[in-house]
């Protein structure tokens, strides 16, 4: 393999995913925050995490900060610190509402911010997910995405009882890639102008503009077409985590199937290596839409750095031992801005930040970090688009793979 720099190492300035384009920012929301003891902090409203009001308030705060999108974590098992099953702990937040429904509940209350709920491709039907996300795109007028994740937990499999044994690591990601392929084909299965309401001929739709997707994969097949017209964005945004720890298959899922990949790495060097590997795999597969790679950090922000560290330590003492999936940052918004600038230079176009404590660190992002980045000319001062693809600088309405171009037949 050649070690020479690939073209993506020197992207054109107009590439929305280049590290010199304006920075993109998202927050990941779950329970009371990224720290297991977050629910015990003042203002955390732990009794409210199963209400719409709680989520509406959090997303309104993120939108006031002009963030690109929020992701809503989800899973099909009770949260646990163990991979063998529920940990039986009663001192941490347990229970979650369905993320797609939560996103839909919030959509009519917001105007600009993107909404990316998590789904577990291992256990859900791509047909159902495709129409749910298309519908989220309709109810939010073009602000929907979906975060795909896999699960190899056998105790999660037992909630479905469908397979004798869970799929193994690489197979899970291959199945997830098939899942993404199916949901995208279903989004494309109606051409944009399929609904014609032609009173003269009595035809409601032009059925020649509806397409069977006829997907055949290793783990399932799906015939199509979708039962819902193409969503406003054409193709809602797909995100996935490309954690090096999850192996080559996870990288491949991000490289080949995602619009946004979250890169989990411990330092700038690791970020650069992961970014290069993912970009190489993307290019090897041929031309594709731009891929955003976002850094991931759990953040504890205070006006002076030691206060943030002390706060995190106090929370750690309450929670007992735990491990954060993402890198952890404690410090001031200005220090975080410095780190984001450094990381970005390693090939990232944005960041997904997980507030350590939603009640404290989410407003610290929107009211501390965002103004700091704006002062440096790195972040928007007003929403420049109404759709998520628009905010991310992606083609606002990608061409439909099934549509016949108007000039068909004239090409040489």
């Amino acid at each position: 393999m050649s070690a020479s720099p690939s073209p993506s190492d020197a992207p054109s300035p107009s590439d929305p995913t280049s590290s010199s384009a304006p920075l993109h920012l998202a927050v990941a929301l779950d329970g009371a925050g990224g720290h297991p003891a977050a629910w015990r902090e003042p203002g955390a409203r732990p009794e409210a995490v199963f209400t719409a009001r709680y989520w509406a308030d959090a997303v309104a705060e993120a939108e006031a900060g002009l963030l690109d999108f929020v992701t809503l974590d989800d899973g099909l098992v009770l949260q646990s610190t163990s991979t063998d099953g529920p940990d039986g702990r009663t001192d941490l937040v347990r229970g979650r509402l369905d993320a797609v429904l939560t996103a839909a509940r919030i959509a009519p209350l917001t105007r600009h911010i993107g909404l990316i709920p998590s789904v577990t491709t291992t256990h859900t039907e791509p047909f159902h997910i495709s129409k749910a996300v298309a519908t989220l795109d309709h109810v939010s007028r073009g602000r929907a995405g979906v975060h795909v994740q896999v699960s190899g937990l056998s105790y999660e499999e037992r909630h479905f009882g469908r397979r004798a044994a869970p799929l193994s690591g690489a197979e899970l990601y291959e199945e997830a890639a098939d899942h993404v392929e199916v949901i995208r084909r279903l989004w494309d299965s109606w051409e944009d102008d399929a609904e014609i309401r032609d009173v003269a001929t009595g035809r409601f739709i032009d059925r020649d503009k509806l397409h069977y997707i006829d997907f055949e994969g290793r783990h399932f097949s799906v015939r199509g077409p979708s039962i819902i017209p193409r969503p406003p964005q054409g193709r809602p945004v797909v995100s996935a985590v490309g954690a090096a720890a999850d192996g080559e298959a996870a990288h491949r899922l991000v490289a080949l199937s995602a619009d946004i990949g979250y890169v989990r790495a411990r330092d700038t060097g690791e970020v650069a290596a992961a970014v290069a590997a993912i970009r190489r795999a993307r290019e090897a597969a041929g031309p594709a839409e731009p891929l955003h790679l976002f850094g991931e950090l759990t953040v504890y922000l205070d006006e002076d750095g030691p206060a943030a560290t002390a706060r995190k330590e106090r929370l750690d003492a309450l929670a007992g031992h735990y491990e954060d999936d993402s890198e952890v940052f404690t410090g001031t918004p200005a220090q975080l801005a410095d780190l984001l600038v450094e990381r970005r230079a390693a090939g990232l176009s944005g960041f997904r930040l997980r507030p350590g404590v939603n009640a404290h660190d989410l407003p610290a992002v929107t009211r501390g970090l965002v103004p700091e980045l704006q002062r440096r000319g790195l972040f928007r001062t007003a929403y420049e688009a109404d759709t998520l693809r628009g905010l991310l600088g992606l083609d606002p309405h990608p061409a439909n793979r099934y549509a016949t171009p108007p000039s068909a037949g004239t090409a040489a």
Partner: protein
Amino acid sequence: MSTKPLKQIHLAAHFPGVNNTTVWGDPAAGSHIDFDSFTHFARTAERAKFDFLFLAEGLRLREQGGRIYDLDVVGRPDTFTVLAALAAVTERLGLTGTINSTFNEPYEVARQFASLDHLSEGRAAWNVVTSWDAFTGENFRRGGFLPREERYSRAREFLSTANELFDSWNGSEIAADAATGTFLRDARAGAFAHRGQHFDIEGHFNVPRSPQGRPVIFQAGDSDEGREFAASGADAIFGRHATLDEGRAFYSDVKRRLASYGRTPDQLKILPAATFVLGDTDAEAHENAHEIRRLQVSGQTAITYLEHVWNRDLSSYDPDGPLPDVDPEVGENTIALGRASVRQFRDPLATAREWRELAEAKNLSIRELVIATTARQTFIGTAATVAESIDSLVQQDAADGFILVPHLTPGGLDVFADTVVPLLQERGVFRSEYEGTTLRDHLGISVPGVDRKAAAS
């Protein structure tokens, strides 16, 4: 005269999704996909103090002769997603979604309904339907289908499994006490284990008990098994018998079945689907209804409808001419796929014979025959006539109320809300204000399972 108190009527609004009754060519017809349409429709229903909004479901586009059927409204958004979004633009209206028990898994559906019940503060309902066919199955991982005989056995076990999941939290587990660090009072929250013929699952349900405990359960099948299923476990039936005689027969049959499950007649509400056409005079309303029928049944629509019975290509026939003299093609394959209405023609030869006799006797063309034999408008007349008919059907136990399906999306309900509802309110048979906040409150049915007030204290 006895002074039996008047029954209170339950009213609901059916958002007309994929169907053959929406007059989509009307200049006043809007989108059936845009969320604005749903918002308009839901707010009208809530302004009229209706019990709930209802969504039907279909999981594969219908086909005729191997091609996608293109004459009716095609396409509909995802039920759960629309209902969750509607919870943001309404406050009291119940939100009823049709979700199939064959192409889903209990853990997932229970989770979605429990989430919807939380996100709507107690307004969720589930219409459990049982389509089983291989045609629809081609869109799903399991592929294939369920033998027809097993559809209710799976549905029953699906519902009882979902109920086990709903009941796996009793509502008293969450302490959320920051000072002591007790989030859960009970580490067993959500534990379940179900072993049965269709499902063998165990683990922990991860949505805490929702405001209604369980969503309200609807059933929509009409067979003997379907009625038994409803009597055993549903809170309401979405029915199809909206006339006096058929309604009374269905009503008494189903309510009679409740006793063997230890239930009382008021624990199951019978709510047939119903259409309406209003006018300034009864005569004008009938003219309007006739016009609507002509718009609903075009010549082409009539031919394709006839093809459901004849099961062969009839495109060369003139819709304004006589019925075909050839006999229906009887066999396994059917020309129309994905249409519930096709299944009612179990004996096509007999149906064809009957229709020919009717057409000859009344000198009807194909199109006129189809208009004469397909579903008519249920309520036609002035607002006063319609209010009187609805009230009288309910007081005579032909129904407990109706699920109204307007022929225009999304504004078709407005005129009903503005003219008929006030008359029902004047009669004292329909609420002027919501008394409770949950759909169970509106329907007057209690939360099964634990007594939440007792649990909370």
